[in-house]
């Protein structure tokens, strides 16, 4: 569909209005929301490459993320409708780790999760481990997502995972912890978390897998779990 090409190209070129217009046009033509998001994912990958090649600055990445978030908002009703019938939406508690305040990625993930039928409780930024524990005890989430961009966030992540495990008996089930942002396998191992991602849609896929649901998205190639 032509409007998908326009969406992809205009997102890559950071043309906000054109991208949103193309997304609306595609949806009006009956393009499935999932397909729309796949076009965005491809565009985001190209943007990431341009950033690595120093063709884009950090401001470009941020703007791209914001356009992507808005497309997700547009796609949300469609995504909900496309979910298989009778599928229970999971609950995800999200927050930026103690010691860090970066939340652009976390906010995109929150929007994406909601689009795919999850309920999201966002604890905000610089969230102390005890706050995550309280949310786990009170809300019994299916997944806890901890976000962080800077090295200073790793200790907050580790402390949170340890605190959750210490309180295993009162929680009955310790929810799996998904790390997001400036993290990798090494950070996951260090913190004791269960899985990690630095891709919003991949984050949704991981949550879907953790819910052991029939995935609404085709399986990605980069979901990494211990």
């Amino acid at each position, binding site marked *: 569909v032509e409007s998908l090409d326009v969406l992809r190209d205009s997102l890559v070129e*950071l043309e*906000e209005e054109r991208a949103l217009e193309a997304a609306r046009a595609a949806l009006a033509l009956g393009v499935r929301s999932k397909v729309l998001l796949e076009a965005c994912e491809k565009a985001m990958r190209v943007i990431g490459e341009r*950033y*690595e090649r*120093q063709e884009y*600055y*950090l*401001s470009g990445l*941020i*703007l791209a*993320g*914001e356009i992507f978030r808005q497309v997700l908002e547009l796609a949300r009703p469609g995504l909900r409708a496309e979910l298989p019938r009778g599928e229970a939406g999971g609950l995800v508690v999200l927050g930026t780790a*103690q*010691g*860090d*305040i*970066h*939340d*652009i990625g976390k906010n995109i993930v929150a929007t994406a999760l909601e689009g795919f039928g999850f309920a999201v409780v966002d604890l905000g*930024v*610089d969230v102390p481990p005890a706050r995550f524990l309280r949310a786990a005890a009170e809300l019994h989430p299916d997944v806890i997502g901890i976000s962080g*961009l*800077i*090295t*200073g966030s*790793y*200790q907050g992540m*580790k402390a949170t995972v340890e605190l959750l495990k210490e309180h295993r008996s009162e929680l009955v089930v310790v929810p799996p912890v998904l790390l997001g942002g*400036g993290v*990798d396998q*090494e*950070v996951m191992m*260090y913190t004791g978390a269960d899985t990690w991602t630095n891709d919003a849609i991949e984050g949704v896929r991981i949550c879907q897998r953790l819910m052991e649901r029939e995935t609404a998205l085709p399986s990605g190639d980069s979901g990494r779990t211990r």
Partner: protein
Amino acid sequence: VTVAAILACEMIEDETLLALERALPPEERPPLVWIEASLHERPQKLQAALQELVERLDEGARLGEPVVVQSVRPGEGPPADRLEKVQVAPAGDLVLGFGYCGGGLKELVSQERRLIFPRSDDCISMFLDGGCDRGKASRDSHSYYLTKGWFCHSSSIRESFEDWVERYGPERAKHIRDLMFANYERLSLIDTGAYDVAEWRPRSEARAVDLGLEHQILPGSVELLERLFAGRWDTPDIVVLKPGEPAGIQYLLTAPE
């Protein structure tokens, strides 16, 4: 202790030069190999650049011959226009004037030489509290820290509001600013002692006003870098890796036994 070279970041040129000046007399100073400042915000590329450099230097160590490598003369303009050659001796350790820098040192390994670096999240932690004494560091997550280097090289601070207006239009420029600096409350210019704070204060204050942040000047120092360059490595805040031992966050975040 012989240090074959110091691998240094252009972003903190002033601090690196001051620390080296204090640490060693001129005749004892090892060659500096500068890494371009733009890699500061791109940890994967920084890691790749450092690893490539280390491998070139390893080759020299294996052959027992000096190696000539590219360094970026600190300054303005594209790095490709500022390349210079630096000769590094076949024997000796490699000192890294870098913090972990978001993964810039991740899995960095030398097969032939020891790698020595500060146990520090990044250069900000190096300059505050005389190095990052974990648990005691006064680092505030709502503060955006910077030094003079942030104004001289590619950074979110240098990328001015006007650049964004030009590139994306006034409304989106404001939006980007709000997103990028959401949750920040302060802009903290660190007085590392390596540059004239009075000269850079007005610019820093103007940026704070631009971004709707409070402005403060914080005392800092290059003491950790100085000890690193002077070869005083017997403290827990400096990591010494044996040949073949890769860097990782375990060295960064766990105090040695």
